[in-house]
C-alpha cells in the first residue's frame, strides 16, 4: 500500500513541472505532504529548520517543490533545529517551525521541545512517523513520539487521517501562540503524507473553544489601583509574561506614573529598560543586591507574568515576607502555585496593564516620588553600597569586562543570546537592555547548547539586527556543529566564547559549597577554537589580554561573516552576588 502510494505520488509529480510557485497547480487531490507544506505557508511560515530522513521524504519532496515560498535550513543535529526555531520565535514573536524525521530525529528534538515548553516559546514541531500500519510494531526508526513528548508539549497530534491534516496544522498554529504559548508537536506517519487528501475535514467544532475576550473584573482592578496608592514600599517583579505579551510599553508607562521600582527576572530582562532609573536590575539567585533587598523589604509585591521560580525566591518563607502580593498571570495554574496572592488576576500582561492604566486615570494622586521618598532613599542606598562590579586585572581578561566591552562595541543594540552557565549570568548583569526580545536565553530548562543555534535562528528572523551569542566553552561544544549551517546559508552568526577552561558554573558551586573539590569540570583539554572556526570556513579570532579585547570584538562583529571569537578569560572568576540555593536573600554572598 505504501509502495503504491509512493508510486502515485511520483507519477503525479514526476518532474517536468515548472517550478515557479505561482505555476504549481494544486492537484485535484493533493497528497498529504503537499497539504502539510501548503498549510504551513498559509499560516505565514517562510522559514523551517530541519533535517530529513526516511519518514519525511514525501514532505521534503514538497519542501523542494515549494522552495521559493518557504526556505528550509538544513541543520546538522535536530536539537539545533529546534533551538534555532526557538531563537527565531523568541526574537520575532512569530511561531518557529522545525521538521524532523521519526525515531532518532524526534528524540534528538526532545530537548529543544522541552526547552520551549518551560520558556513558553511558540513552536510547531513536525515529526515524521513510521507508516500507520507499522506503528506499534517496533518498526525501523519507530518511537512513540507522541508519548515521549507528552509531558513537554502544549498540545500534540498523531495524524491518522490525511483529511484532517490541514485543520490540525491550523489549530497547531493557533494553540502554539494563544494564551500561554508553547510547543505543539504534529507526528505525521509516512503513509499519511502520501495519501491523497480528497475530502478535507474540519476538527470537531467543540474541540477548540476560543478563549473569549474576558472583561477583567472591575473591582479587582480597582483594588489593585488602591493598593498602588496606599503601599509604602511597593515593587514590580516582572517576568517573561511581559515580554511574551509585548507589554513593555505599558509596563514602562505604569512604573513611571507610579514611580515604583521594577525588578525583572532572567526571562523578563528587556521587558523594562535596564538603564532606566526605576530599574533595579535582575532579582534572584544572581540578582542585584538592591533588587533582592527591595523585594525582601517590600510591603507590596506586584508580580506580573512570573511564576515564583525557586531560582528567584530562594527560601520561600523569607521571600518578600511582609508583602502583600498581587499576581497577574495568563495561566491560572501559575497563580498561587508557589505563593498565594492577596489579589490574583488571571490575564495577559498587556490586557491587565491597559485596564489598570485606564482605571488609574480616574484617580487623583500627587507625585508618588515624594510620597515614597523614604523607600527610594533606602533603595538608592542599597544600590550605591553594592553595585555590580568586577575587579579588573592587567594581564587577564575578566568575563564581566567582556560583556561590558560587548555592550560598548554594539552600542547596546545587539540581540544578546546566551547559553547556560556563568557567562549567562554575567551577560544578564552587565549588558543593559533597551527593549523586549533583545535578550534570548534558556531560563526554564537551562539547556546548555541553546545559545549558538538559537542565535542563528534569531539572526534569520531579524536580519537587520546584530545578533551575538555569548556562550561558555562547555555549552559551545554541545551544538557547535551548527556553525556550518550558518556558513552554508551565509547567516551572520557571531559567537563569543567565554573560555574559562571549566564548566564554570559547576566549578563555582564546587568551590563554594563542596570544598573546592573540582570533580569533572576541567575543560582545559579543548580544541583550538580558532582553528575549529577556520576549519568550518568561519572567521576565528582570539583575545587573551585585556588590551586586545576591544579590537578583537570589533574585528569579529563589524562584518557579515560567521565569526567565532574565543575570549580567554580568568579561570576561577565567580558570579556575585549569589544567594545559595534555597537560601534567604539576606544570606546573599556579595564577594
Amino acid at each position, binding site marked *: 500500500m505504501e509502495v503504491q502510494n509512493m508510486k502515485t505520488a511520483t507519477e503525479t509529480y514526476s518532474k517536468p513541472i515548472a517550478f515557479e510557485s505561482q505555476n504549481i497547480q494544486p492537484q485535484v487531490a493533493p497528497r498529504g505532504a503537499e497539504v502539510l507544506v501548503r498549510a504551513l505557508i498559509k499560516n505565514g511560515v517562510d522559514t523551517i529548520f530541519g533535517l530529513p530522513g526516511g519518514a519525511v521524504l514525501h514532505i521534503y519532496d514538497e519542501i523542494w517543490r515549494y522552495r521559493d515560498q518557504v526556505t528550509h535550513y538544513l541543520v546538522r543535529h535536530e536539537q539545533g533545529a529546534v533551538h534555532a526555531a526557538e531563537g527565531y520565535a523568541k526574537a520575532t514573536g512569530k511561531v518557529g517551525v522545525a521538521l524532523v524525521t521519526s525515531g532518532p530525529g524526534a528524540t534528538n528534538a526532545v530537548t529543544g521541545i522541552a526547552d520551549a515548553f518551560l520558556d513558553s516559546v511558540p513552536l510547531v514541531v513536525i515529526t515524521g512517523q513510521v507508516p500507520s500500519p507499522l506503528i506499534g510494531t517496533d518498526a525501523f526508526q519507530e518511537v512513540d513520539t507522541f508519548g515521549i513528548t507528552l*509531558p513537554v508539549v502544549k*498540545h500534540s497530534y498523531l495524524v*491518522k487521517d490525511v483529511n484532517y491534516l490541514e485543520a490540525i496544522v491550523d489549530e497547531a498554529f493557533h494553540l502554539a501562540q494563544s*494564551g500561554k504559548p508553547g510547543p505543539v508537536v504534529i507526528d505525521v506517519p509516512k503513509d499519511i503524507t502520501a495519501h491523497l487528501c480528497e475530502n478535507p475535514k474540519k476538527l470537531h467544532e467543540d*474541540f*477548540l473553544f476560543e478563549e473569549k475576550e474576558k472583561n477583567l473584573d472591575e473591582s479587582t482592578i480597582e483594588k489593585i489601583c488602591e493598593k498602588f496608592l496606599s503601599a509604602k514600599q511597593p515593587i514590580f517583579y516582572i517576568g517573561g509574561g511581559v515580554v511574551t505579551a509585548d507589554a513593555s510599553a505599558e509596563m514602562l508607562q505604569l512604573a513611571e506614573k507610579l514611580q515604583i521600582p521594577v525588578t525583572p527576572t532572567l526571562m523578563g530582562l528587556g521587558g523594562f529598560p535596564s538603564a532606566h532609573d526605576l530599574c533595579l536590575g535582575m532579582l534572584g539567585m544572581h540578582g542585584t543586591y538592591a533588587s533582592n533587598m527591595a523585594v525582601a523589604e517590600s510591603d507590596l509585591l506586584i508580580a506580573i507574568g512570573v511564576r515564583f521560580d525557586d531560582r528567584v525566591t530562594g527560601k*520561600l*518563607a523569607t521571600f518578600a515576607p511582609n508583602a502583600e502580593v498581587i499576581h497577574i498571570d495568563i495561566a491560572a*495554574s501559575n497563580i498561587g502555585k508557589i505563593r498565594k496572592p492577596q489579589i490574583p488576576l488571571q490575564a495577559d500582561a498587556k490586557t491587565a496593564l491597559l485596564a489598570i492604566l485606564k482605571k488609574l486615570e480616574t484617580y487623583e494622586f500627587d507625585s508618588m516620588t515624594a510620597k515614597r521618598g523614604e523607600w527610594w532613599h533606602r533603595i538608592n542606598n542599597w544600590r550605591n553600597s553594592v553595585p555590580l562590579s568586577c575587579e579588573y586585572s592587567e594581564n587577564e581578561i575578566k568575563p564581566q569586562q567582556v560583556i561590558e566591552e560587548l555592550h560598548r562595541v554594539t552600542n547596546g543594540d545587539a540581540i544578546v543570546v546566551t547559553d547556560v552557565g556563568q557567562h549567562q549570568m554575567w551577560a544578564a548583569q552587565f549588558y543593559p537592555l533597551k527593549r523586549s526580545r533583545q535578550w534570548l536565553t534558556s531560563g526554564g530548562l537551562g539547556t546548555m547548547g541553546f545559545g549558538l543555534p538559537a542565535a542563528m535562528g534569531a539572526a534569520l528572523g531579524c536580519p537587520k539586527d546584530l545578533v551575538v551569542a555569548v556562550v561558555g566553552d562547555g555549552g559551545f561544544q554541545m551544538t557547535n556543529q551548527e556553525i556550518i549551517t550558518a556558513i552554508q546559508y551565509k547567516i551572520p552568526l557571531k559567537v563569543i566564547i567565554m573560555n574559562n577552561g571549566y564548566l564554570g558554573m559547576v566549578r563555582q558551586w564546587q568551590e563554594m559549597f563542596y570544598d573546592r573539590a573540582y570533580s569533572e569540570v576541567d575543560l582545559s583539554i579543548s580544541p583550538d577554537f580558532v582553528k575549529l572556526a577556520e576549519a568550518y570556513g568561519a572567521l576565528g579570532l582570539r583575545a587573551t589580554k585585556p588590551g586586545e579585547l576591544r579590537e578583537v570584538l570589533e574585528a569579529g562583529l563589524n562584518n557579515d561573516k560567521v565569526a567565532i571569537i574565543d575570549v580567554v578569560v580568568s579561570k576561577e572568576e565567580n558570579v556575585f552576588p549569589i544567594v545559595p540555593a*534555597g537560601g534567604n536573600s539576606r544570606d546573599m554572598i556579595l564577594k
Partner: protein
Amino acid sequence: MGRHFFPPTTDHRPPTTEMRHTISILLANEAGELSRVVGLFSARGYNIETISVGKTILPNFSRCTIVTEGDEKTVDQIIKQCSRLARVREVKAVTTLPHIEREMGLVDVNAKTPTERQDILNIVDIFRAKVVDMSHDKMILEISGNKDKVDTMIELLKPFGVNETARTGCVAINRLSPFEPIENNRD
C-alpha cells in the same frame, strides 16, 4: 496584613494535608487525551486510586472521574494544569461541593453450604446488592454504592472466602440542590 508561609519547593518531606479528592473532567474522546490527564498525576508521583471514563451526552466528549490522595495545594495545581489542556473542557473538584459518588463491584464469593448461602443472601438484602451468577459452591454478587458501602460489604463477605473482586472505580456528579444532605452519599 498577614504573613504567608508555604513549604519551600525544595522541601521533599511528604505533604502533611493528605486528603481524598474526587476530580471530574470533561475531555475530548480522542486517543491520547486521557494519557495527558493521567500524566499530570504520575509526573508528581501521585497514585490514582480509581479512574473511570465514559461517554457523555455531548458527542465526542467523555467524562473521566479520578479519585486520588494528595495534599490540597498539589491537587489544586493539578486541576489548574488540567484545565489548561487543549482538549479539556471542564474540570471540577467534585469533593468541594455536595455530590453523589458511586461505584460498582462484582464479588466472586464461596457459598458452599445452604447456611452460608442464606447468610450471604441476607447480606445481599441488607446492602441492596444482587446475585448475578451462582454455582454449586460459589456466587457472584453485584453491589453498587459509595466506596465505603462497597468496602464494607466485601469485608463482611471475606469470612466466606472471597475469590475475586472487580470494581469500576468511582463516578460522581454534583447534587441538584446546593445543600449537603444530612447523610452524605446515602443511597
